[in-house]
């Protein structure tokens, strides 16, 4: 391919001219929030739930708090950490945001952490669930959950409820390893036995061979963690293989039973027991309102990602109220510590020590309510801290 070199300069001029975009002038009275979430790619639904929830919250509560106008700048990182880092850096340096929030996956949260430290900017993690994220910067707080929180609870619950033999099926990546580790710790310590352990590649179209292994090992229950998007697929194939009929219960952290996919899974999901911090069926008024408003706005049931976003923006609003509108990282992080409130998921607070979330973990079972599938809560473990930190 030969291109006339004469074009070089002109092409370059074109490119530069098109690329000449300038940062916007920042007004004094606004507090800017950089919301960096995956809006495209495999994790897009995470980003969309968070974005929806943030928008919903701001509709409900206005865009002014403590005399400051709140402005959210949405950026898509497609769950690629280098994108996250660049976007965060540009938001901080050019757009002068006071808060960076979002972070769909752990590497993305990691990538932004040093920037939060360096620029002294509050970082609110609304989705990513690896335990050590909050230790990466003193300016990080989290409004989602850690996999440890739900995994140890389901481990304890399994032991107490007569489940002796468990086969595990977890995605072969860090969150999956986390879930497995915490579950095993508590389940085996309580006398349970792991009869089969399978790690599923992340990009895996067909669960058949892994499910067959599960079936062959004849456990009382299978512990499952797959990333939120794959839960539906998994349950479909679980039923297809007749595992539901052979009495192998699905237990696990709640990711696999994400509310936004639950209804599509069909009746095979009935009876699955998971531990999680949120269910759309959580029987509180505040949640009913939240679900109703969310459904009205987006025609969809909110999942746990949405709640993470909803609480994240709420936390910021409350913190700003407390600081009287001061939006520097130090003031905000100080205000955040120990903050407690009633969220749609139930009572939650921010651990003053770790800045991580402390919340109730509910044991839920999938049941049919008014013709729709819901995770119906039947047991509550109160004020669970992230076991990744308490252990140390």
């Amino acid at each position, binding site marked *: 391919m030969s291109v006339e070199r004469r074009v070089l300069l002109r092409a370059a001029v074109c490119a530069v001219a098109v690329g000449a975009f300038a940062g916007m002038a920042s007004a004094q009275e606004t507090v800017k929030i950089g919301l960096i979430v995956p809006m495209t790619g495999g994790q897009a639904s995470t980003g969309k739930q968070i974005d929806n929830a943030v928008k919903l919250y701001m509709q409900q509560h206005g865009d002014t708090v403590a005399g400051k106008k709140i402005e959210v700048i949405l950026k898509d990182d497609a769950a690629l950490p280098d994108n996250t880092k660049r976007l965060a850096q540009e938001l901080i340096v050019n757009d002068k945001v006071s808060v960076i929030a979002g972070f769909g996956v752990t590497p993305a949260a990691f990538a932004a952490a040093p920037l939060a430290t360096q620029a002294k900017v509050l970082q609110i993690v609304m989705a990513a669930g690896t335990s050590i994220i909050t230790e990466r910067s003193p300016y990080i707080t989290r409004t989602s959950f850690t996999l440890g929180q739900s995994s140890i609870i389901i481990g304890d619950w399994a032991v107490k409820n007569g489940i002796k033999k468990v086969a595990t099926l977890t995605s072969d990546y860090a969150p999956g390893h986390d879930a497995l580790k915490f579950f095993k710790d508590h389940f085996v310590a309580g006398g349970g036995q792991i009869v089969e352990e399978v790690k599923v590649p992340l990009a895996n179209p067909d669960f058949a*061979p892994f499910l067959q292994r599960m079936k062959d090992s004849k456990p009382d229950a299978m512990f499952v963690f797959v990333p939120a998007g794959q839960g*539906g697929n998994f349950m479909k194939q679980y039923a297809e293989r007749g595992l539901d009929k052979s009495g192998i219960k699905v237990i696990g952290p709640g990711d696999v039973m994400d509310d936004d*996919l639950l209804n599509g899974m069909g009746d095979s999901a009935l009876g699955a027991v998971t531990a999680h911090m949120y269910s759309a069926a959580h029987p509180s008024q505040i949640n009913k309102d939240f679900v109703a408003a969310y459904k009205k706005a987006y025609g969809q049931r909110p999942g746990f990602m949405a709640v993470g976003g909803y609480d994240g923006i709420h936390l910021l609003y409350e913190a700003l109220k407390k600081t009287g509108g001061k939006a520097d990282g130090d003031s905000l992080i100080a205000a955040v510590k120990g903050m407690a409130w009633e969220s749609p998921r139930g009572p939650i607070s921010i651990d003053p020590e770790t800045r991580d979330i402390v919340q109730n973990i509910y044991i839920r079972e999938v049941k049919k309510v008014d013709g729709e599938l819901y995770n119906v809560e039947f047991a509550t473990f109160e004020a669970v801290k992230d076991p990744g930190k308490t252990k140390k």
Partner: protein
Amino acid sequence: MTNFLTILFDGVAYGMLLFVLASGLAVTLGLMNFVNLAHGAFAAFGGYVCAVLVNRSGVPFFVALPLAFAAAALAGVVAERTLFRHLYRRSELEQVLFTIGFVFMAVAATDYVMGSSQVFINLPDVLQGQIDLFGVGIGRYRLMIIVICGLLTLAIQGTLARTRFGARLRAAVDDPRVASGLGINVPQVFAFTFAFGCGLAGLGGALGAEILGLDPYFPLKFLIYFLIVVTVGGSSTITGPFMAALVLGIADVAGKYYVPKLGAFVIYALMIVILIWRPHGLFGRTVAR
């Protein structure tokens, strides 16, 4: 033994599904020398049509399947006549750029229209669960896939082998210059074949939603698998991709079952080894006569 048979059964079903999804690509790539990376978009289209018909309009699943085929085939015709037709003479890299652009647009448009969450198709009860046959667990849905895809394969083979159209198509592939000189309208034959391939993809998308999942990124997520099937099989026949899909399906499932630790490596490693051994694919034609 029964375990092995179950795994074999699963592998065959998976392979068959891959074949139906990829066969259209084999057609465009092998017969028409057109690098259609947008193939998966037609599969996703068929899948979504089926999902909407079944879930929202209450059309029975078995009625929706042929409709998915028809819709994707129609979309294929439209796309071929309006867009792809102009690209047959372009360089392969330009075809890549164009069809990837097309996929991007399809993905974003699907996201806009259908949302980014996964979509499931409500299946009739007959297709759910497993039947036990002499201790071999047979999934009903997978059985249906094998039956449908098997019948389709026979139908394709039959069409190719027994009909005048099939003969014309094979003639056009064997030697387009002479076929044309003997009165066969080669572009028309190819266009029809293209549409048929898209229809197959659409049907595959509808059938595969249950096992592979269906979301806006479907065309990109499974592009690699389509390409693997076609390259490993060799793109000049239809038997090649069929055998390759079966081999890969069985190898993938068996690999993941028997050595789960190496599960993810099996399909890639197999592909590399086969392609180094036979660069034109298992059943490809070699250049030298």
